[in-house]
């Protein structure tokens, strides 16, 4: 019964989206004005219906209703509750339902809250949002119905892949989806503004919180995903340039560019067309990401052929949205008046360079990700990995870091280099000194070297915009920028330090023996079998001492899951302020010995602290912007009330 209700809610929501699309676009034409009253309620109710459908799917997973195909395929009655819940979105159908739910809720929120834009632009925006939504409803209802029943209820579920039974990963996909969907809202705003040719600072201000929000979620999603891969996969790496990872990085790059160009448009009424273009590109990247991950084309072109319906469907949606938006863009871009002018040596100038660099990096990642698919068409198998991404990306990353350091110091419109010369030279000297210092040991590769130096320089430069200002009166949005830029420096330092200074030790150790890695002395105190709710494991008990200090106990495991059967390694970590000891236990190595793999990774945690700082910066900026908007709204309301008072 619940499954049928969920399905009905989805169909109703889809019907409302159709209504919203038609009335929205009719309202853009003057003639259909009276229909406009329907658009906002349609968007709000649609959001509620989708949320209801999603809650029903969650409920089906909680009670493990095995007559529903999705539950039987992806859940198991033995699973802990949290993983039953996360099983609801840890699969194709459920994750698409989550996507559309977030999207419909976002549409409902704009309909409820956004009053700043001209009504016609709002109608066009909501119409565009419904247009995007309809495609996903069709996808869900026709080819990925999450509520499908089995002809015969299953006796027991198949379970969720044990690698996915992890709290980090349970939260990872929803976080990314919030990001993707936030960008769909930016896309709708861009299309709406194009349709009514209202590309102005108000448009940028209306769009900005959504871009900021999306960007915060993407940042968190990428950070969490990277940490998950690091500790769960058990081989000590934190980024593999894997297509699935790239699929989340590309929208982030586009959103970062969009965020900055929207700031220029909001503050200075410049970069109008460019901001619209980025709005389209950012959502395209979300769609490409979803397509790559969800179509199965990455798994293999053959899987794509096995289930052509889904891949073709997403590809068709991608073509319709992006193609349509680009055609609209080509038709309208020429008629959008050029915004305000600015000099090269101005904050706008720096932001333009930043945007171009980000776009170049985005292009490089995109090409590297798609290239294997391209060559596959000619039956040539190619792996594109770090040897491509690292050096080619670095060509554009390092110039961008310089602009990141300089840009925030410049004034809008026009500035004089002389004014900012002194702090910049000082920062440059510190960077150079770090470079020389790091070169001393002589064994570090070029990229980590540059990374260490630039991270130090950027860390200092990111605080320079605060110099000489009363710190308490600095706007929250500026604090956000400072902290986000500092976060990039912190993360970069972690990455560079990890690849420059990591030490690895692989040893076969008997119980009672010990081995060394970096400053750590690690003893194997025992090996015991342990059991969990749906797995058994071999657990090593390690006693690790840092420089003869107190012993820390580490318990790495080699786990065996039985539903579905699979082995996983559970790494164990000892975290200090200056790095992490990473331990993995392997197989028995004969003669009573056990394989141990240990890494000492100095400052590796800075990578994720940096990611969190970036997200925190975004959050501060978002709060700053929203509270400023609220204040402005209150002022307008008061002024209006006074006017009315005068007239009466």
């Amino acid at each position, binding site marked *: 019964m619940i499954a049928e209700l969920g399905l009905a809610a989805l169909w109703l929501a889809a019907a409302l989206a159709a209504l919203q699309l038609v009335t929205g676009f009719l309202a853009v034409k003057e003639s259909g004005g009276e229909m406009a009253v329907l658009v906002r309620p349609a968007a709000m109710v649609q959001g509620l219906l989708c949320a209801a459908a999603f809650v029903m799917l969650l409920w089906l997973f909680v009670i493990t209703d095995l007559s529903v195909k999705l539950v039987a395929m992806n859940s198991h009655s033995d699973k802990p509750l949290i993983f039953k819940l996360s099983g609801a979105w840890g699969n194709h159908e459920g994750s698409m339902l989550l996507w559309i739910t977030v999207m419909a809720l976002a549409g409902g929120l704009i309909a409820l809250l956004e009053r700043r834009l001209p009504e016609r632009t709002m109608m066009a925006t909501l119409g565009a949002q419904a247009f995007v939504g309809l495609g996903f409803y069709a996808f869900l209802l026709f080819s990925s119905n999450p509520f499908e029943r089995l002809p015969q209820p299953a006796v027991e579920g198949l379970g969720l892949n044990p690698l996915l039974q992890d709290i980090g990963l349970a939260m990872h996909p929803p976080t990314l989806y919030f990001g993707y969907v936030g960008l769909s809202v930016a896309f709708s705003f861009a299309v709406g503004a194009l349709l009514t040719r209202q590309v102005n600072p108000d448009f940028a201000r209306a769009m900005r919180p959504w871009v900021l929000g999306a960007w915060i979620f993407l940042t968190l999603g990428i950070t969490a995903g990277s940490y998950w891969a690091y500790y769960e996969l058990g081989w000590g790496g934190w980024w593999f340039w894997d297509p699935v990872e790239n699929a989340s990085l590309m929208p982030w790059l586009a959103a970062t560019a969009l965020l900055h160009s929207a700031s220029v448009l909001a503050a200075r009424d410049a970069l109008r067309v460019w901001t619209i273009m980025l709005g389209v590109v950012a959502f395209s990247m979300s769609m490409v990401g979803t397509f790559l991950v969800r179509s199965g084309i990455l*798994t*293999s072109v053959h899987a794509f052929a096995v289930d052509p319906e889904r891949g073709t469907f997403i590809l068709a949606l991608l073509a319709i949205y992006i193609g349509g938006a680009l055609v609209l863009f080509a038709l309208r871009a020429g008629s959008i008046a050029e915004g305000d002018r600015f000099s*090269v040596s101005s904050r706008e100038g720096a932001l333009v360079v930043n945007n171009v660099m980000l*776009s170049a990096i985005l292009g490089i990642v995109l090409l590297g990700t798609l290239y294997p698919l391209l060559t*596959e068409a000619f039956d040539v198998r190619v*792996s594109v990995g770090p040897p*491509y991404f690292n050096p080619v990306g670095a060509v554009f990353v390092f110039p961008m870091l310089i602009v990141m350091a300089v840009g925030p110091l410049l004034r809008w419109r026009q500035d004089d280099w002389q004014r900012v010369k002194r702090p910049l030279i000082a920062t440059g000297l510190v960077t150079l000194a770090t470079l020389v210092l790091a070169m001393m040991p002589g064994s570090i590769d070029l990229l980590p070297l540059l990374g260490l130096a630039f991270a130090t320089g950027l860390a200092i430069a990111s605080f320079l915009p605060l110099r000489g200002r009363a710190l308490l009166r600095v706007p929250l949005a500026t604090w956000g920028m400072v902290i986000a830029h500092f976060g990039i420096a912190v993360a970069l330092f972690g990455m560079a330090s990890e690849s420059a200074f990591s030490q690895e030790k692989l040893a*076969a150790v008997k119980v009672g023996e010990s081995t060394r890695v970096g400053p750590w002395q690690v003893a194997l105190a025992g090996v015991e079998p342990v059991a969990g709710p749906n797995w058994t494991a071999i657990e090593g008990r390690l006693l690790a001492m840092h420089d003869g200090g107190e012993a820390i106990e580490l318990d790495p495991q080699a786990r065996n899951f039985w539903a579905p059967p699979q082995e996983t390694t559970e790494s164990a970590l000892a975290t200090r302020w200056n790095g992490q000891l990473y331990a993995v236990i392997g197989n028995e190595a004969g003669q009573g010995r056990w394989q141990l793999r240990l890494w000492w990774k100095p400052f590796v945690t800075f990578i994720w602290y940096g990611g969190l700082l970036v997200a925190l910066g975004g959050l501060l900026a978002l709060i700053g912007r929203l509270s400023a908007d609220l204040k402005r709204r209150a002022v307008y309301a008061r002024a209006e009330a006074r006017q009315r008072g005068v007239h009466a």
Partner: protein
Amino acid sequence: MSALKAKHQRLVLVVVALIVLIGAGLLAAWALRNQASYFYVPAQIEADPPEIGRAVRLGGMVRKGSLQTLDDGITIAFIVSDGEAEVPVRFAGILPDLFVEGSGVVAEGRLGADGTFMADNLLAKHDENYVPRELQDMTEHQAREAVAETENAS
């Protein structure tokens, strides 16, 4: 600076952006072409081996019965086959979770002077659905054949 104060600032910006983006594209294309020979199957290693010591990837099936741990307890030796040729592989480390005899593997490393492939890293599944693409291709194309053959051999 004077150029940007000219009448068509937008045009200048577009041209500059295009130049950088096309430059990035060309650089990427050039770098990608150098990757073309990055992935090998055993038959290719036999026919046209990569230079000794160059970082490449080797993909194929792990021959049944070929997996053994050497006396030092940490080095693992096995044979990768694609049904046409075989390459002995050595790997010092802990085997990834999904590494099983008779299934596919992608090894990152370099070919040694004695014809043994020294792997730094073995790639396995990343998540529920994702398998390194070459590996999937491998299983689709050659798995049955390769497995049958390796079973006969053991």
